């Protein structure tokens, strides 16, 4: 199971594609346990053929799948101070960053790009869960701000795809400050009356859910994505009782009034385009 990352806590562990997997590799569905041929999985947009489980995918893959003909333009955003806390747990933060960069070929946990979706131009900000659990630090904050700024300049809608365990603890208080900072970005979009859609991907938790991710004009979610503020285990310890099976899933949030649409990945580009055409 070399294709399972161990970097993140077990509950966040998921199927992660490597850039260089051979075509004949098999994956096991993290939900139903069935084996799936790598090529088939990619062709099916990382959705299990057997149970429709939506697996996580890299930011690059998502950009390729969302944009028409897989074409998009990456938008660079300012670099940030590296490791201001000189943080170290069992490993130095700088080394974790180095590893994550090597693994993902991304600078940090977000990619910002522009392109068209079924003909509709938009700016997308896509989280990469493979990059330190998609955690939001200063770089992600800059990415979101740059995404909004680009949307404002071009008068495009902004679609954000969070997939994150929350704030990046290794950046301490600076990561907490990304909550208000990312909300400055959503506020600018709203003041310009440009559409802002969040597509919540698995998982959208912690500081990410408590900031920009809940502030879209519309909130779409991928099926079964985990969405919540406190982690399931923390809540379990607090409540000292078993939680409902569907606790913090997209479907649970829909019933609790937090999500507008739970959308199958295959329908996502069409859905986004339909809505954005109505709002333009």
């Amino acid at each position, binding site marked *: 199971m070399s294709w399972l990352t161990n970097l993140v*806590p077990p509950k966040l562990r998921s199927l992660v594609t490597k850039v260089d997997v051979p075509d004949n590799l098999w994956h096991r569905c993290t939900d139903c346990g069935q084996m799936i041929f790598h090529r088939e999985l990619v062709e099916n947009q990382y959705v299990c053929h057997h149970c429709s489980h939506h697996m996580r995918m890299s930011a690059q893959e998502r950009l390729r799948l969302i944009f028409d003909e897989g074409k998009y333009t990456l938008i660079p955003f*300012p*670099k*940030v*101070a*590296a490791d*201001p*806390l000189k*943080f*170290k*747990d*069992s490993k130095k933060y700088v080394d974790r960053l180095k590893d994550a960069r090597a693994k993902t070929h991304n600078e940090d946990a977000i990619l910002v790009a522009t392109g068209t979706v079924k003909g509709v131009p938009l700016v997308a900000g896509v989280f990469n869960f493979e990059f330190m659990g998609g955690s939001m630090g*200063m770089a992600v*904050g800059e990415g979101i*701000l740059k995404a909004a700024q680009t949307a404002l300049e071009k008068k495009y809608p902004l679609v954000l795809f969070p997939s994150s365990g929350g*704030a990046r*603890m*290794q*950046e*301490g*208080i*600076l*990561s*907490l*400050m990304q*909550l*208000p*900072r990312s*909300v*400055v970005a*959503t*506020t600018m979009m709203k003041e310009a009356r440009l559409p802002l859609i969040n597509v919540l991907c698995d998982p959208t938790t*912690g*500081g990410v*859910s*408590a*900031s*920009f*991710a*809940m*502030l879209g004009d519309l909130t779409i979610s991928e099926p079964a994505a985990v*969405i*919540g*503020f*406190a*982690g399931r285990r*923390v*809540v379990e310890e*607090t*409540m000292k009782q078993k*939680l409902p099976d569907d*606790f*913090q899933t997209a479907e649970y949030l829909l019933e*609790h*009034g*937090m999500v507008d649409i739970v959308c199958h990945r295959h329908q996502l580009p069409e859905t986004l385009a339909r809505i954005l055409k109505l709002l333009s």
Partner: protein
Amino acid sequence: MKFHLEFERPIAELESKINELRHLTSGQDVDIVSEIQRLQAKAEKLLSQAYGKLTPWQKVQVARHPERPRFSDLVSRLVEDFTPLAGDRSFGEDRAIMGGFARYRGRSVMIMGHEKGHDTESRLRHNFGMPKPEGYRKARRFMELADHFNLPLISLVDTIGAYPGLDAEERGQAEAIARCLETSLSLKVPYVSVIVGEGGSGGAIAIATSNHVHMLEHAVYSVITPEGCASILWRSAAKAQEAAVAQKLTAQDLLGFKIIDSIITEPLGGAHRDHPLTAAKIDQVLSQSLGELSRLDGPSLQKHRREKFLSMGRTLPMN
């Protein structure tokens, strides 16, 4: 003082000795009087030494001290005519956040903050200062009322974090906090926060997205509790002390990162030893802060607040 932290024990023993001696003398016995003075000087020196070099973990303990001044203690000393308001107008009344109209130095304001409570009954009543969504929605009402009536807004922050319960998640804890941030960033009135005790994660920033953020000398402010950080990154909550160091959660660290605007010194031996003096010191800083901000008009205040947060981290050295 009924409660002593581990590192305060030697001082507490000394103080109890002083008290005993005081009972022995009616003030005539010169030897005892001078002994008391000697011990008192020693106690003060010990206090000053201990509090002059508190470790981050000790600061966490001081910030969580059960006798640390609460919202109710401070509000009664800082303002007059405090009129607490209640309710989120959609689900419930959450007393983990309190607030209302008041008169501060002759001027009408809105003041709000986390309330942890001071005994078992009031702690339960205020849910130990851990708000649920209705608490944040109430806070948003306070913000909107302040904006509507053009009143400066003051927030006193002291929470270990938002309540991590099933009901809170069900009713949109994340949404409620996010919406607080959104409203905070749009207000057109002066908004000043003081981190009084614990500044715990999203639960704190929800009511600390303000124009000026001040912090008591031994308060802490962090993205996650040291215990939570340790259990995730060190895989053991027992490593909380180590995590507290790594997190750089002290007022002194945060001033260095330009996250807070100023440090408010605490009375000798911590805020819990002298509520009135603590309030007086907060009062001084608040008054100056509000004075400065009142020179800005509504749009400038909003812009100032947004730019303050946008600039955070951008001026740090790149490597």
